């Protein structure tokens, strides 16, 4: 008998006591499940079921007293009257236990009434949420200070407030056998290519997985090339970044319970851009973009170039510098390659420790870290001071990139290139770089070549790569394969107003 009660497929019994037994069996051992008894019109027995903490209990109590005062017609008519009265609330009907459980886990309350073989769902979901705060991982000097939170609805609302057009579409889908996580694809109809949206939907609905706890779980399943060190979607917690990308014809994937939204498709160059670029003066942003490109190369190649030059091409180092390097390396027992490996590994370990450690211990780590990487290591004769400098510069350089995900990929790629440089000098370094470029040339993000607009070449879009063009200069939207691109609204800036006119 109990086995039958556990089945979600059974019919809802019209007898209230039987339904209670059915519900109790389903909710056995769910200590957070609660029920409230009520008498509709002081005549008909009913039960509210809900989960503690997910439902607005005050409002539920009000409803409970409300329905006790209803006038219910005598005789067989009362069934219809309940149905009529109940629609006055934000309420719908449900016919199966499966649906009922779904609604309860969403925070809604279920009302079961004697004599009905269905239940009513009251939308009363309400739970504690984190307030909207500064985005922690992507801070800017100038720009909006709000970041996404763990609540999907809040995140969507933040976006909807920014793009106030009905053409901003949100398609919902549920992923995860157990978590039933809500995932929403957002895009602007008319700007995003329909094929792109279709492809994202296809890839998302193909996911079969127990649980989705963070957008990273999804990212793994939908990216084009899972065996690549490079991120093929941007994850961001900034609504303005998302809005900007939607306006360029991209799509966003929100996941419930995480502040990180995914943006697709992207290219390597969109990972090098920060939303702040567009808020600063264009010359300054252009300068900063160049700085980023430079330090992208530094982060990737500095230690390997140092190893290669010091091991194989000493003649390329100016003699005065070479002498001082030689002097500081005199007492070092390791070859440059080993030295570089020790220091880079040490740096990565310190960085990771800095992220993980509780705030109270953080200060201790930075002191110890400074000693390990700095003065003490040098005076102990483990590493030379030029090596310390190279590692420090490399470390700084990798944090210059506005997206953490690309920074970490190049930090990882640094090690194989270092090994190549240690074996074959500059030739090895070059082989490593060619290898990376071959890989990047073949990589795509939802059909968009990863190195576009440089390769394949789309000269029209270079403006946004080599500089940060002023608004009226960048009217062409990016051509994200297949989608038409098209032009943005806008004309050349006009000098309006009297004070601008020359006498």
């Amino acid at each position: 008998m109990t086995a039958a009660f556990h089945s979600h497929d059974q019919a809802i019994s019209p007898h209230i006591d039987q339904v209670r037994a059915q519900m109790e069996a389903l909710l056995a051992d769910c200590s957070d499940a609660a029920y409230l008894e009520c008498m509709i019109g002081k005549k008909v027995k009913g039960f509210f079921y809900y989960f503690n903490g997910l439902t607005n209990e005050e409002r539920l109590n009000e409803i409970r007293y409300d329905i006790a005062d209803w006038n219910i017609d005598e005789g067989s008519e009362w069934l219809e009257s309940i149905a009529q009265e109940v629609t006055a609330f934000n309420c719908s009907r449900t016919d199966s236990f499966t649906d009922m459980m779904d609604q309860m886990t969403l925070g809604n309350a279920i009302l079961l009434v004697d004599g009905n073989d269905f239940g009513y769902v009251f939308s009363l979901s309400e739970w504690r949420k984190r307030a909207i705060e500064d985005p922690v991982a992507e801070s800017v000097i100038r720009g909006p200070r709000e970041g996404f939170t763990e609540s999907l609805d809040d995140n969507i609302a933040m976006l909807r407030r920014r793009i106030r057009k009905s053409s901003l579409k949100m398609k919902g889908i549920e992923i995860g056998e157990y978590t039933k996580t809500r995932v929403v694809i957002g895009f602007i109809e008319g700007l995003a290519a329909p094929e792109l949206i279709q492809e994202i939907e296809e890839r998302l609905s193909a996911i079969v997985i127990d649980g989705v706890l963070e957008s990273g779980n999804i990212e793994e399943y939908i990216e084009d090339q899972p065996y690549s060190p490079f991120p093929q979607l941007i994850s961001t917690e900034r609504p303005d970044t998302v809005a900007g990308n939607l306006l360029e014809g991209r799509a966003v994937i929100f996941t419930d319970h995480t502040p990180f939204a995914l943006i697709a498709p992207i290219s390597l160059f969109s990972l090098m851009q920060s939303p702040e670029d567009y808020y600063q003066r264009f010359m300054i942003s252009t300068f900063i973009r160049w700085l980023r490109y430079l330090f992208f190369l530094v982060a990737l190649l500095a230690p390997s170039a140092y190893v290669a030059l010091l091991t194989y091409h000493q003649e390329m180092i100016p003699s005065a510098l070479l002498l001082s390097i030689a002097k500081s390396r005199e007492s070092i027992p390791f070859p440059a390659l080993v030295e570089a490996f020790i220091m880079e590994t040490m740096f990565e370990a310190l960085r990771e420790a800095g992220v993980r450690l509780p705030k109270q211990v953080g200060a201790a780590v930075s002191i110890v870290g400074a000693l390990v990487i700095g003065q003490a290591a040098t005076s102990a004769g483990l590493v030379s001071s030029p090596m310390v400098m190279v590692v420090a510069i490399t470390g700084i350089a990798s944090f210059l990139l506005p997206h953490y995900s690309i920074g970490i990929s190049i930090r990882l790629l640094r090690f194989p290139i270092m090994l190549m440089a240690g074996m074959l000098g500059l030739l090895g370094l070059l082989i490593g770089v060619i290898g990376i470029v071959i890989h990047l040339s073949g990589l795509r993000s939802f059909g968009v070549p990863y190195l576009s607009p440089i390769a394949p070449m789309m000269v029209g879009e270079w403006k946004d790569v080599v500089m940060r063009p002023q608004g009226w200069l960048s009217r062409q939207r990016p051509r994200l394969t297949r989608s038409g691109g098209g032009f943005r609204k806008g004309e050349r800036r006009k000098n309006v107003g009297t004070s601008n006119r020359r006498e």
Partner: protein
Amino acid sequence: MVQGRISAFQLAILMFQIILSSSVLLMPSISTTLSGKDMWMTPILGSVTGYLTIWLVLKLHHLSPNGSFIKLLVGTFGKWIGLSMSVAFIIFQIHILAITTRDYGEFIVTNFYLKTPIQVIIGAMLLLCAWVVKGGIEVMARTGQIFIPIITFCTLIICILLFPELNPSEILPMFERGVQPIMKGTIVVGGWFCQVTLILFILPLVKDVKVFRKWGYLTVTAITVMMLIANLTVFMLMGESTAFFNYPLFTASRYIAYAEFFEHVEAVVMMVWVLGEFFKISFYYFVIQKGIAETFTVTKPAILVVPVGLLLFTSTFWLARDFRMIGEFISNAGTLYIITGNVIFPFLVYCIARIKRKIGSGQAQNKA
């Protein structure tokens, strides 16, 4: 393997690099030996071969069914003769590639990595090439779009940095020894230009073949200009002693010294050359792989990447006992050999195919 397609412009960039990669480094020495002070004229005259080859290749492409040269051979000469001709043509290309690869390896080993075995240098390069060939022509073209501008820029920078050291009077008097030496040098330069024939295999993969005529001729012009710049720079710097060096531009780069610290940029020249050779070898590699796949109708060309790579690796060493043998071959029979294979053979095929088609259509008319 997704057999990607590329644009005419992308093919033009690749073509630009496969001709230039070895010629900029090797040519000045050979053309000085043959043409003396007038060596700088050889690229200009030699470019005629380039234009002719482009014309010939486009003609052949239009004649070929589905643009496949091998199908044209089979269609014209019958199955067995046609297939054996295509096998011979591919073996010829493998031979040329083996010479190029060996040359690259010897350059690196003799100038930089004296103790590293040449097998490592060549093996590493072929591995990279195999990777890009596996990715397909599209990946190769994109890699080219990233690197080839950098290569060209670096080559030009080296020439510009040498500017203060140049002595323009080196090239005077002109026509010192008459026209004959110039013609000899021109033929050698033609030996480089005729490698354009390789694109015969790539043209079917080009999205907009119609505009390739323009891009092809433009590329030959651009190659000529680059060769001219390199030749003039080297010759004005070293005069007739250019002939004594194997890699004159490399030697020339040793003259660069600025502000007491910007000197010894030979390693940069090496890197530029390695990049250039990477494209040349992978382009040949791709063509050979595609040629074999078409000849033996292999449905999945990707499975050929590793076997072809091994064949190339070993043929690089079967080629000759030492580099001197290769050098002798290049300077004696090499030019005629490469021109025969890359220009005269396709030209004969073109003539015979045309005649056969004429006769064929004549017969068809007679029957009607």
